[in-house]
């Protein structure tokens, strides 16, 4: 049997890219195709596919410069192999020799032996003249590897920070855990360190620890026992901001996959919590998470597959003390985790999300008790979804008032607080706490 059939990382990365760029699948789902590969090939395929997705337009620019004429549409696979090879040479990982050889060999495996010499020539030329090409790239907007509409929007929304935001977007995010406070945290940390992981606590978010090197979460000791969950520190702020306690009626309006739901239950096991999500499948994830974390004793949990924007169809008529609206959004704050968002999201989809957010605010607000709190959250960095959305809501309603959040994290906006991606190593997140007049 021949060896090359074992190292199939590049071809696996290529099929992940095809799933993402041609079919609009997200990278996480595209990984499903890797299940049969050798674990080391899987890790490498993931590294390559995420890397090329992250730097797509920069790599395209380099490839266009190095190719004398663009490849034909039917040779898109060869074009993408070139991007994979350029990424490896530019951003490192394997030795240049291996990168070039294995990329060219992949063309042979695709049944396109004519491309072997072409890929070889392009990659070797890039290797020789790398410095000059990268210097030229540095004067082009392609170096940010963001779509034009997003680049323009970030410049408009964040005239002082847009460049930092894009840099942070292009950095892979660390692995953050939220330690389950109902177990001895020090014991969990010791168990992780014993397995050779280094564990660092977040300076501002008490249950958050950073794990390096990053690993598959189910490979970490204690995951199955519910000692921790994977959650960015920015998302861990929600439960605290919501000021939950036992006996309060709490609505988690867009709950799946349930990270914040479980956190709320952890802080207030006696809360009467209703968790909603439109998708039955995703609702099952919440159930799974609750069970894994041993929160099944919380007897007042109600999981509903329902559309939060249509309370007539599911609301029992008793108002809530707390509402968490973790609204559907552009997800432009988590690009560092999901680089495909840059290419899959369209301005029209963002407009749809903005409309949905204001509809959800308007429909859920009447369900809040006077004196109650609605926490509005997004993982977006766009002001139309965040402070401008809340300003418009305040202008529409006379019985709502945003509470000033005096906090060390993020930055204060006209309404609410924004964490930009990379701030204290967190994801981009927005929070506004709305208080309803008694």
């Amino acid at each position, binding site marked *: *049997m*021949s060896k090359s059939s*074992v190292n*199939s990382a590049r071809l696996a990365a290529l099929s992940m890219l095809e799933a993402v760029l041609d079919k609009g699948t997200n990278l996480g789902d595209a990984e499903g195709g890797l299940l049969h590969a*050798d674990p080391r090939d899987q890790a490498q395929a993931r590294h390559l596919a995420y890397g090329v997705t992250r730097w797509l337009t920069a790599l395209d620019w380099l490839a266009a410069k190095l190719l004398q004429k663009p490849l034909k549409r039917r040779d898109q696979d060869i074009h993408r192999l070139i991007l994979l090879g350029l990424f490896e040479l530019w951003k490192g990982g394997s030795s240049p020799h291996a990168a070039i050889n294995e990329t060219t060999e992949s063309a*042979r495996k695709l049944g396109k032996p004519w491309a072997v*010499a*072409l890929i070889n020539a392009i990659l070797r030329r890039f290797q020789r003249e790398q410095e000059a090409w990268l210097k030229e790239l540095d004067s082009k907007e392609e170096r940010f590897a963001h779509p034009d509409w997003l680049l323009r929007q970030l410049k408009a929304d964040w005239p002082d920070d847009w460049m930092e935001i894009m840099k942070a977007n292009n950095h892979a995010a660390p692995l953050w855990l939220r330690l389950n406070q109902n177990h001895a945290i020090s014991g969990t940390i010791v168990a992780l360190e014993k397995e050779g992981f280094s564990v660092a606590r977040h300076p501002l978010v008490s249950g958050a620890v950073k794990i390096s090197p990053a690993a598959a979460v189910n490979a970490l000791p204690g995951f199955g026992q519910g000692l921790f969950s994977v959650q960015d520190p920015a998302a861990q702020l929600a439960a605290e901001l919501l000021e939950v306690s036992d006996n309060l009626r709490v609505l988690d309006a867009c709950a799946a996959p349930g990270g914040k739901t479980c956190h709320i239950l952890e802080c207030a096991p006696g809360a009467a919590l209703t968790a909603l999500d439109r998708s039955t499948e995703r609702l099952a994830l919440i159930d799974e998470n609750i069970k894994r974390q041993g929160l099944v004793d919380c007897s007042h949990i109600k999981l509903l597959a329902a559309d939060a924007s249509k309370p007539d169809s599911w609301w029992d008529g008793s108002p809530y003390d707390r509402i968490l609206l973790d609204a559907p959004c552009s997800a432009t704050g988590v690009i560092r985790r999901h680089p495909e968002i840059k290419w899959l999201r369209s301005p029209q989809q963002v407009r749809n999300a903005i409309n949905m957010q204001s509809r959800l605010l308007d429909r859920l607000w009447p369900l809040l008790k006077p004196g109650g709190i609605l926490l509005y959250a997004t993982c977006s960095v766009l002001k139309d979804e965040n402070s401008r959305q809340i300003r418009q809501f305040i202008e529409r309603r006379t019985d709502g008032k945003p509470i000033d959040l005096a906090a060390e994290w993020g930055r204060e906006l006209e309404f609410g607080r924004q964490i930009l991606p990379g701030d204290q190593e967190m994801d981009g997140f927005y929070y506004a706490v709305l208080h309803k007049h008694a």
Partner: protein
Amino acid sequence: MAKLEILETPDARLKTVAKPVEIFDDELSRLVEDMIETMYEAQGIGLAATQVNVHKRLLVLDVSDNQDTPRVYINPEIIGSEGSETCEEGCLSVPGIYAEVSRAEKVRVAARDRDGNPFEEDLDGMHAVCLQHEIDHLNGKLFIDYLSPLKRRMVIKKLEKQRKIAGEKPAGTVF
């Protein structure tokens, strides 16, 4: 030690069914060493005697990460198997062609070592795939024989085309 020539499809000798090894002597030992050297030289992870035109039931393989653990199976027989798994395979006798083949996920094999001592082993993963692939060679069978007739025809055409252009200057070079 010597590097041996590897037969390539459509060579009819690849269809020979190999005969059991009966004599475990120095000559056999030399063949084993030459096959291991040939396998490493060709960047293979497995090689059956059939592929080097020796029609004895003997195969070598090495699926270790560092390619430093050669294994020898003489008169191998699969005496138990379970599960099924699909894996992309390639073959030193079918250069440049890779295709998915379904095989048993786990196998139990009975064989002899190069001194003739019998042993049994449970294999899984790439080790199991490779062993089944090499035993097929001893029975005159190639992995492309598992493909649908249409796919197989495409593979054979591809091989012919590859052979034709192998001597020519590659097309599409920009410099």
